[in-house]
Each structure stands twice: as C-alpha cells, then as structure tokens.
C-alpha cells in the first residue's frame, strides 16, 4: 500500500462536486470517498454514480437516528469494482416526517433494506412496494429502533418477567468480584456498575 496518492478518489470527489453543485464530497482515506447532500438529489446522484462513475454495487444502506438534531441520517454505501473505491453518500431527513425516495428501482437489493427501515424506524418510501411484516409481525407501537422507544418499558409491559430478575444486575461483575478477578480497564467502560 505504498501508493497513497489519492488521485482516483479525488477525481471521483471532484467529478461529483462538479456535477451536483450542492454536494460536498471529500476523500476520507485511500479508497473511501464520502459525499453528502440534500435528500431530493439522492436518486439522481445514485443513478449518476451507478451509470457514469461505475458504482454498480450497493453494498449497504443504513439509517442513523440523530434524535438530538431531530434528524435521520440516511447512508448509502456504494462500491466500484473496477476502481476499488467505496462511496458513501449521506443525507439528512426530517425525523417528524420521515420520507425518503424509493431506490429499489435502481438496485433491487434496496428492497430488503427499505423494508427493514420502514419497520424499524418508520421511514416511509413513497411508491415503494414491499411486503409488510418483515421482521416484526403485527407491530402497532412506535418503530422499535427509534431511540425514543423505551424497550425496557415495552418489555415490562408486554412480557412476563421471572422474579429475581428485577434488578437487572450484570452478573459478570458479581462473578469477577467473587473470583477476585481483576477487571480490565477497557471492560470497566462497559460495566453497568458505574
């Protein structure tokens, strides 16, 4: 990996910025390009990337819940097989009225991701035809992956809990204490006992 000239990555970034004025693109590191723009342009950027820039593969689609900013961040990850470059395209959508353009006409595999997002985050994709009930069946609460969904409360309300489990203690600490074991520093970070 001696070749650290980010020439091809830069070219892609430039190309993108030139084509779409509102788009900001930057090269993260070798083989990683990241772009962000407003949501209306997403389909056209994706089509452009697919048809003209050679990003034939949609590796991943994801969403991040920025509850503090009242945003969902949609993340599309594309991969160019010839140039071996990953392009990440991000956009923010409003959390209240979470709708996003349907892209399963561009990539068939987006269908599955969008079903999941619709179910787990409640993001609507106008014009998207996918079967309901993907992971959850008969779900009528708030979409469970939203950060304002209280899963503990829901579990307590819905499921029975066996007595003796109310404290929700992390038994690992107890066990390690009993053994006289030294808890590594990095592990303390994850411990519930603060």
């Amino acid at each position, binding site marked *: 990996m001696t070749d650290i000239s980010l020439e091809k990555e830069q070219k892609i970034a430039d190309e993108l910025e030139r084509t779409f004025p509102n788009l900001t693109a930057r090269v993260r590191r070798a083989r990683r390009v990241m772009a962000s723009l407003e949501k209306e342009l997403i389909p056209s950027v994706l089509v452009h990337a697919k048809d003209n820039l050679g990003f034939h593969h949609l590796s991943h689609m994801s969403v991040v819940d920025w509850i503090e900013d009242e945003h969902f961040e949609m993340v599309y990850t594309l991969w160019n097989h010839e140039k071996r470059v990953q392009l990440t395209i991000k956009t923010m959508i409003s959390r209240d009225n979470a709708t996003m353009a349907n892209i399963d006409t561009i990539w068939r595999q987006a269908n599955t991701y969008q079903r999941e997002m619709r179910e787990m985050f409640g993001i609507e994709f106008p014009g998207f035809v996918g079967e309901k009930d993907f*992971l*959850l*069946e*008969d779900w*009528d609460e708030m979409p*469970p992956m939203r950060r304002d*969904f209280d*899963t*503990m409360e*829901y*579990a*307590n309300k*819905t*499921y*029975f*809990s*066996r007595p*003796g*489990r109310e404290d*929700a203690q992390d038994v690992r600490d107890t066990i390690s204490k009993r053994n006289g074991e030294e808890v590594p520093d990095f592990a303390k970070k994850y411990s519930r006992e603060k």
Partner: protein
Amino acid sequence: MPNDKNSQKIVDMITGFARSNSLFMLAYGTGCGDIEIPPAMTSRYDWERFGYRKMATPRQADVLLISGYLATKTLKRVIRSYEQMQEPKYVIGFGSCTINGGMYWDSYNTINMLDHYIPVDVYINGCMPRPEAVMSGLFELQEMIKRGDANGAQKYRENLEWYRANQKKIIKNWKMPDYNW
C-alpha cells in the same frame, strides 16, 4: 372390576417404558442453542443409544425442544407446532433464554418466560447448556414420563384459556386454527 387398577398400572408401566425409551424430538432450532444438538446426536454423545431420535414433523414427534430465545414471531410457529403434535407430548426449554429471557430479557420482541405460553416439562439451564446438560435434562424427562409426571399436555389442555390469553397478548393478529383436542 377389582383388578382394574392393577391392570391399569401394568399398562401404564409398559406404556411409560415405551414412551420414555423412544423419544422422538421435533428439533425446532429457534435460537443459538440448536448448535448443541449435533454433538449430542453424533458419535461423541450419541443420544440414539437411549432411543432418542430426531423427527422432522410434529405429527411424529413426542418432544418439542425449544433451543433458545424465542422472538414473538417464532413463538407463533412454536405454538402451532406444539399444537400439531400428538399426545402424549413434552416440551423441553433449553437455555436461560427460555427461562427468564436471558440476555434478551429487555428486548422488545423476545419473550422471557416460555412456560407462560406453552407448558414446559423440563428446563435445562445454561447459556448454552452443554450436551451433557441436555442429556441430563432428557434423562430427567424420561424419569418424569415413567413416573407419570410429564403431563404438560394435560395442563395445557386444562388451562387453555390462560395460555391462550397469554399468547394472544403478544400475538395480536390471531389467525391460528382452533386447538381443541
């Protein structure tokens, strides 16, 4: 008849022996626990020695092995499979997830207590229980069958309303065929 009781006893003994020594399991691999079944089956532990056998359909199976956490979606299938089994039938809960939810205790879509939804005859503790634990649980079940204690099916039949209420609480869109035998 005077010796009716005795003859019944003998019949019970024979059937108990037959039932306990020929456990056909519907291995319903619900969760990660199912990975412990292959070692139990194959040459290391070889559970066929005791007449245990895996059966693919609930019609032929005696034991329903719930091998791990149950999402609500899976629970529906488990209930259906259980109801399709022919009596006498037994349920083994497998791993701590079936007992109290295990590490998924606060998840929004896994149940915590299996015995509120279907009657469990034997719980096997552990996360995961090792094959030895599995076998010991099965031996326990065998003993229970011989004693006549493994009457989960009867319990289910008698308290069907309670079980149904619990089940329907989770499975909102209830479209199951009736279970009344």
